[in-house]
C-alpha cells in the first residue's frame, strides 16, 4: 500500500526501517499490529513515537530488536537496516550480539522488568558478562559505576540491594543502567516514565537527555504523552492503527499539526494557559487490528471524513519540508480550507 519513501537519505541514518509489518495470528484472525511503517533515526537523534494504546508503538519497538515471538511474525519483506546490516536477516547468534550491545531497550514497568530474585548490581553485571565475558569482579565494578552514572546515591551499597528494596524511580534508573552499560548506539525507551510519579518522570527524562548527550546515542522514545515528546524529542512520528499517520519535527507538529488525529491528540492535552473545565477527547476507540477499515483507518472517529476516505487508503502525503500526513486533505486544499475555517469558528 505505502511505498517506503524515507525523507532522510538512508546513508546518513543510524537505523532505517523500511515497510515494517508485524502480524499476530489470533483466534479472531490475523492482527496486523504494525502495517507498513517506515522511518529512519539519525545518529544522536531523539525520535518520538506517539499514539494511543494498541496503535503498534510497542510492537514496533520490539521488532527493532526482533523480540517478536510466535504467534507474532515480522513480514520477511520488511527491512531494518542498522549499521550496514539488515537486522531481520541476521542469525539468532548475530542478533543477540546487537541486543543490549548496539541497540538496547528500556521497558515501561520498572516493577516487573527487573528479576526480583537477584540484586540490581547482579542484573547490570550480567549484561556485561553476557557481552564481554568479563570476570565477575570486573562486571560488578562496571555495574557500580553505571549505578553511579544513572544517579543512585551510594551505588556500591545499592548494587547489593534487591529490586523490591528500591523505589519505582530508582528501579527505572537501574533499568536505564542495564540498557546503557554497553553504550549502545540506539536506545529504545518504551514508555519509560509512564509508571512513575510526575516529579520522578521529569527526573528520569532529564537523566535520559543527559546520558544521551554524554554517550552520543540515538533514542527512540515511545510514549502516549505528547508532553514528554515536546520536552525530549526533535522529531515525531504519530502512529494510528498500525501506521504512521503524521511525521514532522516537534516544533512543526505542535505549531501546524495536519492530521485530524494529531489535532485531536493536541486538543486532548491539558495546558496551563487553558481555562477549559473539561478536556476534549477523541470519540470512539482504535479499531481492532484484526479488522482495519479499508480506506482511512481514522475515518470512523474523524470529524472531517467524507466518501473518498471510505474508498481509498491515504498515503503519507508531503505537507511541507519534512512534514508528512496520511490524510487526503493534503491533496484537497479547498476542502482543507473549509475545515480550517470551520475549526476557526
Amino acid at each position, binding site marked *: 500500500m505505502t511505498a517506503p519513501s524515507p525523507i532522510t537519505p538512508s546513508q546518513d541514518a543510524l537505523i532505517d526501517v523500511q515497510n515494517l509489518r508485524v502480524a499476530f495470528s489470533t483466534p479472531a484472525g490475523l492482527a496486523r499490529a504494525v502495517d507498513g511503517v517506515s522511518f529512519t533515526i539519525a545518529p544522536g537523534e531523539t525520535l518520538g513515537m506517539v499514539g494511543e494504546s494498541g496503535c503498534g508503538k510497542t510492537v514496533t519497538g520490539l521488532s527493532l530488536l526482533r523480540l517478536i515471538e510466535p504467534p507474532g511474525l515480522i513480514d520477511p519483506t520488511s527491512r531494518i537496516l542498522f549499521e550496514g546490516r539488515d537486522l531481520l536477516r541476521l542469525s539468532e547468534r548475530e542478533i*543477540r550480539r546487537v541486543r543490549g550491545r548496539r541497540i538496547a531497550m528500556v*521497558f515501561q514497568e520498572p516493577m516487573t522488568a527487573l528479576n526480583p530474585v537477584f540484586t540490581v548490581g547482579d542484573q547490570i553485571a550480567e549484561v556485561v558478562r553476557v557481552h564481554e565475558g568479563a570476570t565477575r569482579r570486573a562486571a560488578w565494578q562496571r555495574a557500580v559505576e553505571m549505578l553511579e552514572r544513572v544517579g543512585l546515591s551510594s551505588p556500591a551499597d545499592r548494587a547489593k*540491594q534487591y529490586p523490591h528494596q528500591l523505589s519505582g524511580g530508582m528501579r527505572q534508573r537501574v533499568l536505564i543502567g542495564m540498557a546503557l552499560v554497553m553504550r549502545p548506539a540506539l536506545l529504545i525507551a518504551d514508555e519509560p516514565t509512564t509508571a512513575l510519579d510526575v516529579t520522578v518522570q521529569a527526573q528520569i527524562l532529564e537523566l535520559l537527555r543527559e546520558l544521551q548527550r554524554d554517550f552520543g546515542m540515538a533514542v527512540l522514545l515511545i510514549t502516549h504523552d505528547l508532553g514528554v515528546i515536546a520536552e525530549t524529542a526533535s522529531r515525531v512520528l504519530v502512529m494510528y492503527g498500525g501506521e504512521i499517520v503524521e511525521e514532522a519535527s516537534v516544533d512543526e507538529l505542535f505549531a501546524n499539526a495536519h492530521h485530524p488525529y494529531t489535532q485531536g491528540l493536541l486538543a486532548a492535552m491539558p495546558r496551563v494557559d487553558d481555562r477549559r473545565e473539561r478536556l476534549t477527547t477523541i470519540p470512539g476507540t482504535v479499531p481492532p487490528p484484526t479488522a482495519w477499515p479499508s480506506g482511512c483507518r481514522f475515518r470512523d472517529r474523524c470529524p472531517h471524513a467524507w466518501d473518498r476516505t471510505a474508498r481509498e487508503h491515504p498515503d503519507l502525503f508531503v505537507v511541507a519540508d519534512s512534514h508528512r500526513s496520511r490524510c487526503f486533505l493534503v491533496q484537497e486544499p479547498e476542502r482543507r480550507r473549509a475545515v480550517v475555517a470551520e475549526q476557526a469558528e
Partner: protein
Amino acid sequence: MHRPTPLSFDVAGAPLDAPAPDVWRATPFRALWRDGAARAALCLLVALMLVAVFAPWLAPYDPGAQPDIIRLQYQPPSAAHPFGTDPYSRDVLSRMMYGTRVSLSIAILAMLLSTFIGTAYGLLAALGGRFTDAMLMRGVDTFLAIPRILLLLGVVALWGELSVKALIVVIGLSGWFAAARLVRTLVLGLRERDFVTAARGLGAHTSFIAVRHILPHLASPILVAATFGVGAALVIEAGLSFLGFGVAEPQASWGNILREGQDRPLGAWWLSVVPGAALVITVLAVNVIADRLRDIASGRHLPRG
C-alpha cells in the same frame, strides 16, 4: 502488578543499611521449624537418616545372621529382639535399621533423578517452541495415564531381578512426568514476565535465561513437589519389594520385611506392624513437611495485612 516470587518476602521500603534478606537459606526453614507438626516430622526424618547412616554401629545383630532357623524363627518381641525375629531367625530391629538405609536412599535418589529429569524436560517443552512442546507433552500425557506401579511392574517383569541401583533408576524414571508438567506450566507463565523479555532484549541466550532467570523462580514449587515425591517413591519401593519385585533378599528393605510377615499376619504380627508403621509414619512425616513447605511458599504463614 508486581507479584512477589514464591520464596521472597517483601520488605518494601527497607532502609539501605538493612541486610539483604537471605531468601534462599534461612527463611523457609525457619518458618518450617516454627510449625509444631513440621518440626516433629523433621526430627523424625533426621533421626531416621542418622539410623540409616549409622546402621552398622547401631544394629544389635548382623541383619543377615540366621542363628537358629528352627528354634529362633518367629520370636515375638523380647528384650533380646525388641522387634522379634523373622522366619529365618534374623533380628527384625537390625533388619529394619539396615532397611531404613535401603528404603530411604532409594526414595531420595529416585526423587532426585525424577526431579532433575522432570525439570529439564519441562523447561525444554516450555521454551523449545510450540512444536517441541506439543510433542514432548503428548509423551508425558501418555505415561501419566498409566498407573506408576503398573508401569513399574511391567518393566520389572521384563527385566527380572533388579539391583538397588537399577531400582533407583527405574523408580526415578517412572516418577518425573508430573514434575515435567508442573515445571512446563510454571515456565509458560514465567517466560512472559517482563524481566525475561528484558533479558532477551539485552542479548541473553535462551538457555542462559532458563538457568539464570527462570530456574530460581521454580525452586520453591519444585522443592514442594520433590518432597511429596520422596513419599511416593517410598511407597512405590515398599510396594514393589512387598510383591517380591523390589529389593532382593537377603538385603533388607521395609517392603521385603513386610513381605516376610504375609504368611502369618496374625501369628507374627510384628513382621507386618513394625515395617508397616515405619512406612506410614515416615510417609506421613514427609507429606507434612511438603504440605507446610507449600504453605510457606504461597506465603500463607505470613501475618495478614
